[in-house]
């Protein structure tokens, strides 16, 4: 199972209290994880990436194994630790005040 950590407001929107676990077929990539996430939680469509272009929303970043992978190709394989569920894929929102 692939684990995904979502920011607070997306956890509320998806009505989950902690990490989400998803079945994702190999090779596990950001695009495949997000496909599985949006299939399981359709209310998240459009909130992490654009409906049509699939481009990441500018104020969100993807992290895996302490690395910012936001600018890696979304069809690149994720680290084995993420694919095997030992580490989560983290979707993180930009920090802001006000």
């Amino acid at each position, binding site marked *: 199972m692939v684990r995904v950590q979502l*920011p607070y*407001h*997306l956890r509320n*929107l998806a009505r989950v209290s902690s990490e989400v676990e998803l079945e994702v077929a190999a090779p596990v990539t950001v695009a495949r994880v997000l496909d599985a996430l949006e299939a399981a939680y359709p*209310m998240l*469509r*459009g*909130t*992490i990436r654009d*409906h*049509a272009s699939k481009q990441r*929303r*500018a*104020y*969100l970043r993807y992290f895996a194994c302490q690395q910012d992978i936001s600018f890696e190709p979304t069809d690149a394989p994720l680290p084995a630790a993420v694919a095997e569920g030992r580490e989560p894929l983290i979707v993180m*929102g*930009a920090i802001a005040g006000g």
Partner: protein
Amino acid sequence: MPNVRVLIGTHKGAFIATSDAGRKNWNISGPFFGGLPIYHLKGSPLNPDRIWASQTDDWFGQVVHRSDDGGKTWAAIGNEFAYASKPGTHQWYDGTPHPWDFKRVWHFEPSYHDADTLYAGVEDAALFKSTDGGATWAELAGLRDHRTGSQWMPGAGGLCLHTIILDPQNPQRIVTAISAAGAFRSDDGGETWKTITKGLKSNFLPDPEAEVGHCVHHIAMHPSHPNVLFMQKHWDVMRSDDAGDTWREISGNLPSDFGFVVDIHAHDPQTIYVVPIKSDSEHYPPDGKLRVYRSKGGDEWEALTQGLPQKDCYVNVLRDAMAVDTLDECGVYFGTTGGQVYVSPDGGDNWLAIAENLPAVKSVEVQTLK
């Protein structure tokens, strides 16, 4: 069961206030979608328990919520607003062409005739329609494809379609307003559109007869008098008696004719309300006094002050933040950027606060419940 339900969109969530017909004792529920900007909420006139809410921010984009139990519970519904035709360009602030790009829903307008049909006014300016309760959206592209579309330029708040007026007697007629493009009317259900800006004067436009470029802040129509429209423009309060074909200024003795809101008494289509704001550079009431002004048709205005702060008040009232109920004695409501929501249960003579410490209020709508 309450007689009145007030739907309040704020910068940090939505709130719902309810009261009996006295409108003196209020219960407030919320925040719903706490911490997130809620631009607008509106209920179906056919099924008041069906309410739509627009949540929009730079982090997670557009989310549309719908409640079918009067706001107790909510579900996220369709949030894909894809322009129907190749988006093309409008003018950017510096006059250069800029690609059309969806940003947010500013306003929902549910149909008078079908509880599954509603319209959404969006930024960058376009009109969308749903016939399945908001699950899916289709653009009425005739508006954005208007021959003037490439000349439209955003105001400081963005190129937003913020006003949608439906004619309950004629489902084919729709009036929209866009900042800072102007006002438009369709008489064929939204397929084709004409500008309705004749008589508008905007000092920042070099051409005194400019067809587009007017920063229309809001338009109001009484459902029993669909040919009479009242407009609060960037500057100037305007009136049309021919469904927008021509306009004349009715600012009269207002202390400032800059402002955002305009609304109409529920039972007297000639009685109108505005909240003057000092200027386009100073977005707060003149002299620190929060005053609603009331007029019979325009030109002659009276200040309504009883119960409103008359010193040290420096808040704004945004374009969708005034509404009226339809109880026997019409109630008038407005919200401020200082988080206050006021009601006058007697048509404007006396005011009291429903809430005083909410986040900045973006919109106020009222439902009169049977």
